[in-house]
């Protein structure tokens, strides 16, 4: 099928160009690794002092992976704006190439990159005391892939519409930061006031983070797993739909 073929061609091309400049892949990992190394021990000490029985890293790392996926895919629109400027997107639009493949090929590249980053981070976190359930980690990777398929298409859509880095940067920051703060990734929201907890419960990332924690602890009976995965999957389908419309719209 030509959509599959075009998606594969688009994926290969964007992956090749990304790997040619690996600095950006490493750059995307610096911030989460700093959190892991400089913030993790602090969190562990305070949970121990608070007498909580859980492993701090098994609580913290799943959230950190979600955060990496969020920030890794929220900024991909910048790359598309560069491609728009080079004329690459317009050149491809004149070919019979599937518009949907232009979106999906790029998004799948983003997903593969963020999964690779996630695996590296899990490995780095092992000596700190992270315990991994293999099946749980595998489903967590699926969840991260869905977050990538949610955020990357939205970022591409914004890039296509705004066509300017100067306009995209505040938009992405303005959305990603509140999503992060309201997700309970950095600190448990158990201590938060009711209104903050309510807002947090509306944030899909809260449920994704809860699901990831349950998965890391192999807590398979926890309903948050199904809730987190389904919410993210539904939103990802919506995001892909919106973005594929943006890609196929004739560009005035």
């Amino acid at each position: 099928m030509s959509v599959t073929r075009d998606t594969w061609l688009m994926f290969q091309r964007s992956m090749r160009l990304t790997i040619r400049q690996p600095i950006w892949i490493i750059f995307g990992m610096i911030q989460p690794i700093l959190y892991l190394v400089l913030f993790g021990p602090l969190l562990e000490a305070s949970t121990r002092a608070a007498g909580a029985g859980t492993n701090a890293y098994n609580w913290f790392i799943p959230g950190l992976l979600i955060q990496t996926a969020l920030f890794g895919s929220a900024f991909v629109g910048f790359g598309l704006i560069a491609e728009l400027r080079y004329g690459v997107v317009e050149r491809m639009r004149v070919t019979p190439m599937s518009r949907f493949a232009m979106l999906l090929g790029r998004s799948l590249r983003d997903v593969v990159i963020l999964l690779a980053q996630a695996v590296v981070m899990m490995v780095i976190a092992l000596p700190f005391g992270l315990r991994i359930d293999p099946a749980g980690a595998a489903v967590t990777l699926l969840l991260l892939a869905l977050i990538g398929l949610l955020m990357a298409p939205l970022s591409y859509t914004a890039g296509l519409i705004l066509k300017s880095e100067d306009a995209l940067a505040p938009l992405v920051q303005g959305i990603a930061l509140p999503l992060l703060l309201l997700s309970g990734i950095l600190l448990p929201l158990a201590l938060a006031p009711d209104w903050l907890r309510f807002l947090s419960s509306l944030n899909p990332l809260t449920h994704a983070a809860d699901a990831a924690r349950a998965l890391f602890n192999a807590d398979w009976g926890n309903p948050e797993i199904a809730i987190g995965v389904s919410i993210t999957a539904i939103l990802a389908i919506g995001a892909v739909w919106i973005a594929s419309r943006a890609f196929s719209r004739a560009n005035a």
Partner: protein
Amino acid sequence: MAAPTRISTARIETSDLRRTFRSRGGAVEAVKGVDLRVGAGEIFGFLGPNGAGKTTMIRMLATLITPTAGEATVAGADLRREPQLVRRRIGYVPQGGSTDPAETGRGELVLQGRLYGMSKSEATTRAAEVLATLDLEAAADRGTGTYSGGMRRRLDVGLGIVHRPSVLFLDEPTTGLDPQARARMWDEIRALRDLGTTVFLTTHYLEEADALADRLAIIDHGRIVAEGTSDELKQDVAGDVITIGVNGAGPRVLGLVENLSFVREAGYEDGLVRLYVDRGELAVPQLLRLLDAAGFAPTSITLNKPSLDDVFLRQTGRSLREEPAA
């Protein structure tokens, strides 16, 4: 070249094609009803000042923007109803470049071939052919970011012809190129035409339209103001201008020549007789013989062809020459 089925000899045919853009300031009519017919295997130049509607027109014909009204057939397919078929049959080289600086020339060409449905080995073979044709072999495996402007432009053209389209659209193909690179690009474009490709190019350079285009249309404010071969357009202006230095014998010379069949208009001024004729190169020898037979020796005789700028000036009241060619 792949021989497309010949339904009619026209490769591009438009009828009352229009495009209106809506912006905050209201509706802007960029193209206001254009009728065009471009034949197979010709270089058709679309000449006009910046902002005249050239790019809107070429982007419409290349399926990038949809017409607001009107009909068009491009490479035998209906632009509105079969854009996917049009895409398969045309090549388009955008104005501002079309390559990623991190990708190699070969990488871009192979991908482009594959996007048009070629297998990996077909696309690789074809990329090598195109690189050889455009003399880019030495740079084929370098990132396009290291290319000179002329090389990058040739690669852009290569990307437009990988799939051997029957119609190639070039938007301002030589803008920003130095004179050598421009002459080289003209040669490449002529070579494509000689292989049977129909080339539709926009330009705001008079010299380019004059030297390169088999036929051309002049567009201003979204409307075609003149169309034909360069020579036809210039002849429509006023014909050629012949100036004869007569050194005081003006009235006598004027009396000799003003009733000749090929002289459209004649005048005498400042010791010079000025004649407007249809075909100057045929008129000069006849004039010389006539004056010689009458025993008159002119001090000088000059023949001036009108330029496309005279055509533009006559049609629009403005000169195109405000922007000098690079």
